[in-house]
């Protein structure tokens, strides 16, 4: 089967040396249960399935950034060896328009995944399907395209780009920010830029599509099986139930793998047209243009403050790029408006259309660039008024949500500052820029905070107690490295009362009980809640049987309740039988107990459920009710800057983070470190470089688009300062995955200022900006 179903058979050796039984409970440091499959090569990722008759498709993309396709000459490609099909806008089957991820109905009756009108370089315009991958690649190179080219707006700095379109819903205002700024004794104002960044998951996007009659099976890495299945169903006019999406392991997503994309439609269409399964995997360069990375952003942050550094006003203006024919709003005030207490606030945001693929979600969309602005600006204020950068953050500490005017559910940010500063040795910092050095390396220490809202939604799971005493969990949620398999095993193990080794978790198949998108760090909170409910009701049934079934050895006891622990069932006072789960099930003649649990509001209709799992329309606001719910963190970072060459190295990171209760600290720490490392990349390395003549991303590969390597990364220490937050989730956790990247880039920029006396407000901080 394609689902993850490998028990711990060959890992006991590794685990038994250092593990202990409590590791399997919620909050324990259990090693990944999907780990053995991943370290032995046994884990089959979605498009690694081997199917009979598999044909291979390769996309052909536009080489201009704007204009129309005049003609596509496919003759040479069609006669090339092995070629089965060449698809162009004229020859691809009709595909219907599909609703968007909010569930809004399509604006067009049909959808053309191959473009006649080109709005960005790299847009798909044709595809070749052949018997082998090599034949498809060779034939794709023979497709001749001619264009009528028109001028393109290549990026935000293009003179033709203009000021863009105001996005009124992004406006946030209270007090009189302009007047308060004008009256403030200390005023700072600066502009902060972030560049196009890419998710660059190591597993490229791709899929295998197979039709059997009107039934479509898609093996595709997916952060959202049910949402993508809905799109396929609408595209091809088949019932939702006819589409099965399978995604047992996902080789990284970081926001990029939640939607079915143009190439997905092409693969499914060509499979239908050919009557054969088709595999299509995007090349690495195509992964830079087939879906959007993080939009480039520009912000100005203006702070008016007292001489003591107390903020009186923040005026914030933001711009992000979007596509000519698609809308992406990167919410640039999401941290600006809540991090510090201010009586007066104003933020407005525009978007500017440029010739790019529609930008998309990359780890902490919104919060990440937002924090770069405000967390650098407050550092500038600290120097302006001569207050320590950590002290100024405490002086302006927001005791409640300044925007929603609600209490925080939990906010361990003060604790994060204290724990991080202590561990880092912040008190030994010499305040003046350029005052710490080691030979010709200038040393700088910087601090910045980060936050991410607790996004909540609903999920379903099935929990089964099986005849052999093991427990099985099924859900159509996914594991792209966050540790879903593991924490759901822990949740079921603890709730039912079996060792985690006896739990098998199956995920990544849309035929399983439903789940919403794995994005916005919501999955763990949602799914542990659903599994907890399902497991509780399975346990109740099991204990109920043991008490009431006349064949049960406990029947004569007339107990009110029984205890299940470590796979055995006993009476609470230990005065009765002691049997295994398997023995009890056998005695009452059952081969399984099964319960479904979900976290949907009671009385939800089938329609509500469908909408909940296939759109993001039903997610619950983080400020719902009486509380404002967020995760928080503080990063303390040391950089070393070579005085002669301007090269910046991060040499030490200590981060203290509040993600509430951690379901598995070992895995949460890994995710935090991963976020910090991606933040180091953003600060120092990552930038999509646009060729100004052709509007192309010229560094569209992993050698030229620089992601951090092992040699770029120092030791990273992460400290959990969270406490259970039951306003945020059933078991008390808040978000983990997106949080840690937020605040890393400003902490590095602040450290670079401390090292060099140079304020770089334009990411990435490359050496030419320092010399």
């Amino acid at each position: 089967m394609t689902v993850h179903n490998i028990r711990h058979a060959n890992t006991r050796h590794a685990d038994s040396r250092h593990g202990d039984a409590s590791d399997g409970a919620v909050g324990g440091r259990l090693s990944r249960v999907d780990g053995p499959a991943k370290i032995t090569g046994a884990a089959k990722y979605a498009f690694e399935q081997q199917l009979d008759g598999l044909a291979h498709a390769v996309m052909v993309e536009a080489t201009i950034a704007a204009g129309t396709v005049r003609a596509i000459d496919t003759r040479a490609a069609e006669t090339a060896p092995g070629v089965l099909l060449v698809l162009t806008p004229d020859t691809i089957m009709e595909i219907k328009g599909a609703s968007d991820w909010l569930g809004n109905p399509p604006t067009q009756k049909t959808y053309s995944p191959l473009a006649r009108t080109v709005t960005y370089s790299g847009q798909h315009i044709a595809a070749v399907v052949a018997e082998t991958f090599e034949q498809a690649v060779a034939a794709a190179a023979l497709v001749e395209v001619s264009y009528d080219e028109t001028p393109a707006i290549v990026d935000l700095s293009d003179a033709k780009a203009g000021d863009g379109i105001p996005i009124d819903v992004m406006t946030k205002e209270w007090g009189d920010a302009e007047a308060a700024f004008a009256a403030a004794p200390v005023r700072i104002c600066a502009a902060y830029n972030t560049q196009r960044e890419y998710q660059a998951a190591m597993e490229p996007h791709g899929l295998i599509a197979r039709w059997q009659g009107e039934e479509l099976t898609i093996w595709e890495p997916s952060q959202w099986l049910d949402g993508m299945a809905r799109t396929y169903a609408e595209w091809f006019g088949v019932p939702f139930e006819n589409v099965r999406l399978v995604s047992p392991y996902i080789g990284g997503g970081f926001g990029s793998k939640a939607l079915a994309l143009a190439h997905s439609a092409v693969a499914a269409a060509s499979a239908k047209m050919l009557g054969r399964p088709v595999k299509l995997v995007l090349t690495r360069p195509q992964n830079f243009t087939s879906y959007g990375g993080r939009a480039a952003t520009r912000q100005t942050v203006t702070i008016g403050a007292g001489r003591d550094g107390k903020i009186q006003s923040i005026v914030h203006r933001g711009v992000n790029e979007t596509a000519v024919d698609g809308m992406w709003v990167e919410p640039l005030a999401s941290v600006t408006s809540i991090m510090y207490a201010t009586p007066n606030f104003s933020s407005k945001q525009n978007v500017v259309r440029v010739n790019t693929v529609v930008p998309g979600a990359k780890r902490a969309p919104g919060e990440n660039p937002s924090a770069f602005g405000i967390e650098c600006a407050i550092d500038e204020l600290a120097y302006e008024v001569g207050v320590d950068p950590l002290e100024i953050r405490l002086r302006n500490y927001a005791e409640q949500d300044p925007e929603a005017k609600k209490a925080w559910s939990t906010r361990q940010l003060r604790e994060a500052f204290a724990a991080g500063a202590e561990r880092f040795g912040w008190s030994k910092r010499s305040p003046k820029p350029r005052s710490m050095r080691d030979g010709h390396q200038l040393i700088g220490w910087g601090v910045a905070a980060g936050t991410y809202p607790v996004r909540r939604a609903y999920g379903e799971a099935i929990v089964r107690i099986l005849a052999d005493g093991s427990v099985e969990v099924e859900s159509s949620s996914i594991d792209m490295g966050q540790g879903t398999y593991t924490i759901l095993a822990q949740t079921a193990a603890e709730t039912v009362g079996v060792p985690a080794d006896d739990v098998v978790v199956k995920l990544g198949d849309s035929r399983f009980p439903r789940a919403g998108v794995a994005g916005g760090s919501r999955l763990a909170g949602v799914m542990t809640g659903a599994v907890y409910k399902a497991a509780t009701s399975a346990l109740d049934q099991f204990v109920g049987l043991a008490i009431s079934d006349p064949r049960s050895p406990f029947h004569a006891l007339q107990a009110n309740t029984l205890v299940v622990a470590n796979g055995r069932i006993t009476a609470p006072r230990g005065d009765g039988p002691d049997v295994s789960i398997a023995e009890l099930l056998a005695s009452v003649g059952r081969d399984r107990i099964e319960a479904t649990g979900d976290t949907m509001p009671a009385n939800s209709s089938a329609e509500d459920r469908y909408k909940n799992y296939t759109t993001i329309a039903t997610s619950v606001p983080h400020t719902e009710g009486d509380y404002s719910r967020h995760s928080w963190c503080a990063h303390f970072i040391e950089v070393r800057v070579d005085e002669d060459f301007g090269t910046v190295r991060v040499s030490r990171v200590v981060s203290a983070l509040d993600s509430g209760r951690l379901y598995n600290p070992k895995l949460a720490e890994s995710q935090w470190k991963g976020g910090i490392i991606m933040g180091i990349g953003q600060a120092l390395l990552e930038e999509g470089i646009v060729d100004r003549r052709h509007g192309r991303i010229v560094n569209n590969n992993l050698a030229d688009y620089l992601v951090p390597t092992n040699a770029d990364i120092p030791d990273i220490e992460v400290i959990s300062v969270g406490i259970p937050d039951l306003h945020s989730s059933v078991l008390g956790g808040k978000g983990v995955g997106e949080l840690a990247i937020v605040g890393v880039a400003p902490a590095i920029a602040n450290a670079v200022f401390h090292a060099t006396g140079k304020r770089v407000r334009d990411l990435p901080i490359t050496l030419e900006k320092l010399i």
Partner: protein
Amino acid sequence: MTDQTTSITIPIHLTINGRDHSLNVEPRVTLLDALRDRLDLTGTKKGCDHGQCGACTVHVDGERVLACLTLAAQVEGREITTIEGLAGADGTLDAVQAAFLEQDAFQCGYCTPGQIMSAVACIREGHAGSDDEIREYMAGNLCRCGAYPNIVAAVRQAALEVAS
């Protein structure tokens, strides 16, 4: 143009994880695609297909090699080891594999086979002497999940075990 697209296959014989395989492929087929698409050995991953990421690292005669930059026909008669062949016949994990699990040296797992194959070679080459040396000699294997500190810890642990 035409010879680029003619499909002439050649018979090749590969020894992979101690087993012999015969296949007919075009001369342009890479070792990586031969493994993944023809032999159902999908443990070796494709991240870039251009020698930029290290996900496809395998051993040829004990040395680490990028399978995406190696033609299948080039390695006829050589000993190829992939991630599937690293554990013992009885399923006993290699020291590096066990250390990766224990140190949580991966998240999504996609770079992991390449990291592990690189790490085994790195230790064998004698380049796991210090954390800095490990970082340098493991720098050809990208991990976008950012498991690097845990990878360094795993390689350090495995190097000590191998030495003892």
